[in-house]
Structures are given as C-alpha cells and as structure tokens.
C-alpha cells in the first residue's frame, strides 16, 4: 500500500502549490512532505534495484550495444577496425532488394506465425484444460501426457517431426494418409512446399507449446468456486451458458495473460526452423523467421553489424505490437 501514498499526496501538493509560491507564510507545511516523499522514492528504488539491475544488464545494455553496433560494419574475428556505416545497414534491410526481400519475408512469416498461433494455441489450451478439469480416474496421468511435449526440448521435438513430415512415402504423415485414403494419397512434400512449410512449423510448435498454456488455464479453472456452477445449474443454465457466463469470466485474467505470453513467445520462433533447415528439405524462404535470420547472419556469416540492425528493428516492432496488444486486451483487475 505504500505506493498509494504519494498518489494521494500529489493532488494535495498541487492544490497548495499556488499559495506556496505566492506567499511565504505557508512554508512550514512543506518540509515534512518532501522528506517523506524522498524516503519513499529511495525505498522504491532500493527494492527495485535487483530487478532493474538485471534488466539493465541483460536487456538494456545488450540492446544499447546492438544499436551502436548496427551503425558500424563489424565482423566477427576481422582484423579490420569496425568502420562507421551510418544508416547503411538499415538502408540495405529496407531498400536493397536482395537483403530486404528475405528480411521482409521473415517479418511476414513471424507475423503469420503469431497471428495464427496465438488464437489457435490459446483456444486449444482452453479446450484441453476444460477437458482435463474433470474428476476422472487417473486424470493425473492424462494431464501429464498432455504436458509431456513441453518437457521435451524444441530441438528434439523438431527432429521427431522431421520424421513425421518427411516427403515421399517414408514420412509418417504421408504413409498414414496413404493408408487412410486407400492409396490415393501421393507423397507430399510438407516441409519443402512453400504453401505448407510455415503451416508445418506452426502445427509442430502448437503441439509442443500447448501443454504449458493448458496447465496455466487449468489452474485458473480450478480457482472458480464450484458453488457458481451449482447456482447456474439451479438456474437451468445449459452447458454452453455455464461456459459463457461462469467459466469465461472466471478465467478472463488468466486467459489474457496466456494470450499475451503466447504472443511474446511466438515472436522468438527459432529452434524449429534452425533444426529443420539443417535437417534438410525445409523451404528456407517460406519458413525463415527474423530470429533465424539474425542468428545466421551473425554467426554463420560473421556479419555482426547487419545482424544487430535486424535485431534492433525487430525489437522495436515487437515492443510496439506488445504495447498495442496491452492496450486492446487489458485484464479487468489491472490498475
């Protein structure tokens, strides 16, 4: 509650301000307040120091450094001194057709990924959470089964899905479709076709990540008091009405949190693309994400300046998108 005090104090100060500046007699009232305010400020600063220090050291400094590097032509392990490049890296990213093509495509891929994954994964997680929020025998087993993909590292999941999505009839998906369609399904190249490369990445990412969101939503669901459902039942509310008027409002805050988390996570797609490209057969242009491009530019081509410019642009875009999103979907209990 300490944070509320300065907020109360401020209007008072403002009301009294004009007489203070106009007349000297009002002065004695002043010393008490500034001292208290200062102490609050100090305490606040002290308490937030560890968090702020971490933020500055691991986000602020690297980002500031990236901004500086993006104005230079810096190479990993080059004996040449970094040369000042001005806005050249940014100019190339946006106007040089060879460079801007892949970069803009990567941005678009990232956006597509986020736009599809956020609603789909949140809805799916909600569905699973509701499904697993029953009093069934061995429900713990089911819950752990659905949570399992989250435990596996993405690199491992990607390797497994490479076997599923492989082209020709060796791929598990293709052979399953072949069997189901009585041999009418040809061997389709899921990862190599530009139409399905991103879709494949999306499916495997949702499969891997959905369990995590599910667990959070499950916890939210269990916070809803059972009496509310009993009351709703007495009011003869149908299952859908119960879901619509009891469940959804009950987990609104959790849902917003999950959606926000998913969208932030969905911007850093990297592992699956990296693993699948190295594994062969992935259509690089159709599935390249900004993170992938930044990492390969910096560490495969040693072009640190260019990679910094990419990350700076991406950082700004993600910050803007997050701010917009926060404004649009704001949980009730905030502020």
């Amino acid at each position, binding site marked *: 509650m300490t944070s509320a005090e300065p907020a109360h104090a401020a209007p008072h100060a403002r009301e009294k301000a004009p007489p203070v500046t106009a007349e000297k007699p009002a002065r004695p009232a002043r010393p008490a307040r500034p001292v208290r305010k200062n102490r609050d400020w100090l305490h606040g600063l002290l308490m937030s120091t560890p968090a702020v220090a971490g933020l500055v050291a691991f986000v602020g400094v690297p980002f500031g450094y990236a901004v500086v590097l993006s104005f230079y032509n810096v190479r990993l392990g080059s004996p040449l001194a970094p040369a000042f490049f001005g806005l050249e890296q940014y100019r190339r990213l946006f106007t040089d057709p*060879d460079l801007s093509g892949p970069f803009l495509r990567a941005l678009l891929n990232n956006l597509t990924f986020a736009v599809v994954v956020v609603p789909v994964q949140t809805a799916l997680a909600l569905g699973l959470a509701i499904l697993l929020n029953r009093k069934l025998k061995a429900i713990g087993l089911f819950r752990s089964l659905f949570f399992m993909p989250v435990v596996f590292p993405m690199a491992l999941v990607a390797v497994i899905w490479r076997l599923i999505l492989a082209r020709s009839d060796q791929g598990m998906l293709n052979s399953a479709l072949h069997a189901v369609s009585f041999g009418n399904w040809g061997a389709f190249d899921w990862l190599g076709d530009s139409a399905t490369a991103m879709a494949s990445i999306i499916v495997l990412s949702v499969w891997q990540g959905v369990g995590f969101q599910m667990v959070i939503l499950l916890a939210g669901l269990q916070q809803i008091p059972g009496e509310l459902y009993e009351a709703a039942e007495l009011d003869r509310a149908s299952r859908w009405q119960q879901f619509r008027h009891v469940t959804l409002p009950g987990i609104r805050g959790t849902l917003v949190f999950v959606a926000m988390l998913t969208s932030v996570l969905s911007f850093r797609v990297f592992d699956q693309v990296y693993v699948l*490209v190295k594994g062969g057969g992935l259509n690089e242009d159709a599935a390249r994400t900004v993170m992938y491009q930044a990492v390969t530019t910096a560490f495969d081509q040693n072009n640190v300046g260019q990679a910094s410019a990419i990350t700076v642009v991406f950082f700004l875009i993600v910050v803007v998108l997050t701010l917009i999103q926060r404004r649009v979907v704001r949980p009730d209990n905030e502020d």
Partner: protein
Amino acid sequence: MSSTSRRYRRTACTGLALALPLAALAACGGGGGTDASAEGGSGKGTISVWAHQSQKSEDAAVQAAVKSFNSSQSDIKVELKLIPGNDYTKTITATSASELPDVMEFDGPTMANFVYNKKLAPIDDHVSAKTMANATDASKSQGEIGGKHYGLGMYDSGLGIYGNKKLLDAAGVKYPTSLSDGWTAEQFTDALKTLKAKDSDGKTLDIQENNGLATEWGAYGFAPVVWSAGGSLLKDGKAEGALDTPAAVSALKTVQSWKTYVDPNTDGNAFAKGRVALSWVGHWMYPTYSKALGDDLVVLPLPDFGNGPKTGQGSWAWGIGADTKNAKAAGAFMDYLLNDTNVTAMTTANGAPPATKTALAASPLYKQSGPLQLFADQLAKPCGDSDITKSCVAVTRPVTAGYPTITAKFSEALNSVYGGADPKSALSKAARAIDQDFSDNAGYEIP
C-alpha cells in the same frame, strides 16, 4: 508536475546506466591485434596441441600419436586437448591469438580466416623439407596462401557416386568404370530415369538430404556441379560472372530436375538398405556402404557438366599457432604426426584418403586397383582453388577469409533451387551478396 519531472529524472538515470557500461565496452572493443609471429624457440620443453574431437577411432589415433611422440624422445612434451568437433571452429574464432596453442588442427576452408586473423603462422620454416615434399599436391594447395604454407593434413577428402551393382545391372544401366569414362550430366539423368522404371517408389538417388543442403555439406557436395559447368564460386575475388554463368545456371537446373528421383533419406540408410541404386556422397561413407553391400559396391565419379568431372577436396589439417614461442618443437611434432605410421593409423580409423604420398601409395583402399582408387586418381589431379581447367579434377574450396559468406550464400541458393526457385535469380542473388560482403571487407586482403 512533480511526477513528470521525476519521470524525466528517472529516464536520465536509466540512460546514464545504459550509457556507462556501453562506453566501457566500446573502450574494450578497440585495440588488440598485435603483430604476431612465431618464435623458433629452443625446440625443447612443453608444447600444447588442440585437436577436434570426432569419432572414437580418430580420437584414439591422435592420442596414440601424442603418446608415442612423448615416449620417443625426452626433449619435447606434448599436451593434447581435444575439443568437441561442433564447437571447435567457434572456439578458435573466439580465442585470442595469444591464448591459442602451439600446434592446432583446423578444418580446411576455415584456414584462410585464421590466417587473416593472425592466428596461424607459416609452417615452411618449421616442418622438415621431407615432410613438405611428402605431402600430396592437393594437400599442399589447400594449405597455401600467397606462396606460404599454413597447414598440412593427415588425410584428404573426395566426392563420388556410390553405385549398387545389383540394382544397376537389374535395370540394365551402363555405368562408368573409371574417371576417364564418367557419365555426362545427360547420361546421369537418363540412368536415373531408367532406374526409376524398375524402382518401387521411383526414388533412385541419395544426395544425403538428411544433412541439409543449406549447410557446408550443400556447398561442399554441389560446388563441383558449378565447377564442372565451367563456373566458379569466386573468380579474381568476384562471384558475379563466375557463380551465375549461363552454364552454371543450367547445371543447377539439371540438379533441380533430379529432385523427383531423390530419396529424402530421413533415416540415413537409403543406400545401405538398397532403397536407392546411387548415392552422391564422399569417401566417408565407404566403411558403412562396403559393410552393407560387399562386392556389389561400385565407386563412380560425379557427372560431367561440360568442363570435365570435378570433386571437392580438403579436410582437417594441422598448423602452428601464430603466437607460439616454440615453433621448432611444434614443427618437430608436426613432422612426427605426418609420418607414415600416424597417417596410416588415422586413415585406417576414418577411411579417408591419406594426404601424404608414401602413405597413399601403401594404402590398401586407395592404391592402384584398390576399391577406392578413383578417389586417389581424382586427388592426383588437383586444380587448386582458382585454376579450374578441363583436365584437373580435385578443386579446393576458395581459400579466402570470406569463405563463411561464400558457403552460406551458395548453399542457401542451392537449397532454394532444390526447393523449386529459379536458378538464375538464386545464383545471381548469391553472387551479389558475396560481392557486397567482399567489398564491405576490402576484399578480405590478408594484411
């Protein structure tokens, strides 16, 4: 008012907090780059050696060589450190020259970068004339920059097409028997077509797609297509006009057309299990393939796209750290490492063609009429990295510090062509990107 001014103050504070470490970092960033040169030293004492960790049998061969060197004399003691292969090149890149060992191993195409960064010293003055004379021409040309040698390998590498004799005969496909009567690209395509008719799933070729094409495998495995079409990855420091020639474009178009015949090889066993009749890969699959196929295994050269058949060349090599204080001892150790006993032990361990003349001649696999004679024949006709004529065969990947960009851009282009992109625009784009990178770096001239 007070709350806004507070916010300003806080912003200023945060800004300062950001700027101060930045300034410190920037101050640290510059400088360095002392002029390093190897000192001969006394030729006695302890020297450190770094090598990449690989399959067990190779590691054992290196360790055995070090052990027997240490017990063979009492003046020099070698301390060996094995570093995991996946991180090896990054480790050297990230280590400053002064902390690098006296003797180190490195992958062939990364050498120029280390010379450019002043991390390697020329070895000519430190290894014996006998060792230098005994190195194969291909090995020497990989290790040479500006007339000086910076590295010598114990073994080399080569590409070819492995064939399954039984499947080829069953389909009635005629295949070459030596380097001189190799397939042309059209004949190779025809062979694929003929084989397809007899194959249950229509896939008759393996190109190690499981390794990925947007990787060093893509660049190493398919640069020979460009060379064989008369193109080049880099010519006189420029890729435009070398990488995207009409012949190179049409050659990649042919490669693109093979995709329908290629087994994706997700399990890595397409050829060994007999699912395909042909496998486009290097010498390193020989132990696996010969075990699986026995006498049915035949080795053929890569197809000729008009400028003669070509193969990639070059592998891990040994060099002397630029900052060593004991180059004499380092040279003595390299002499020992490159003697027949050690080279033979190593190449027995990994099946690679020996990179020294005497060991090559004695190798049961690579000697005349040995099962892998073709690889030895190819390596006997080295082109170096720039003088690619019709008659030479083994081409070294461009010896330049800009190689990381070349391989990244070329393999990216290859991958997208294989995925269906237009070869002309993909290759031109790669060439422009490489040239841009070279002009940004003043041509990677070694200072």
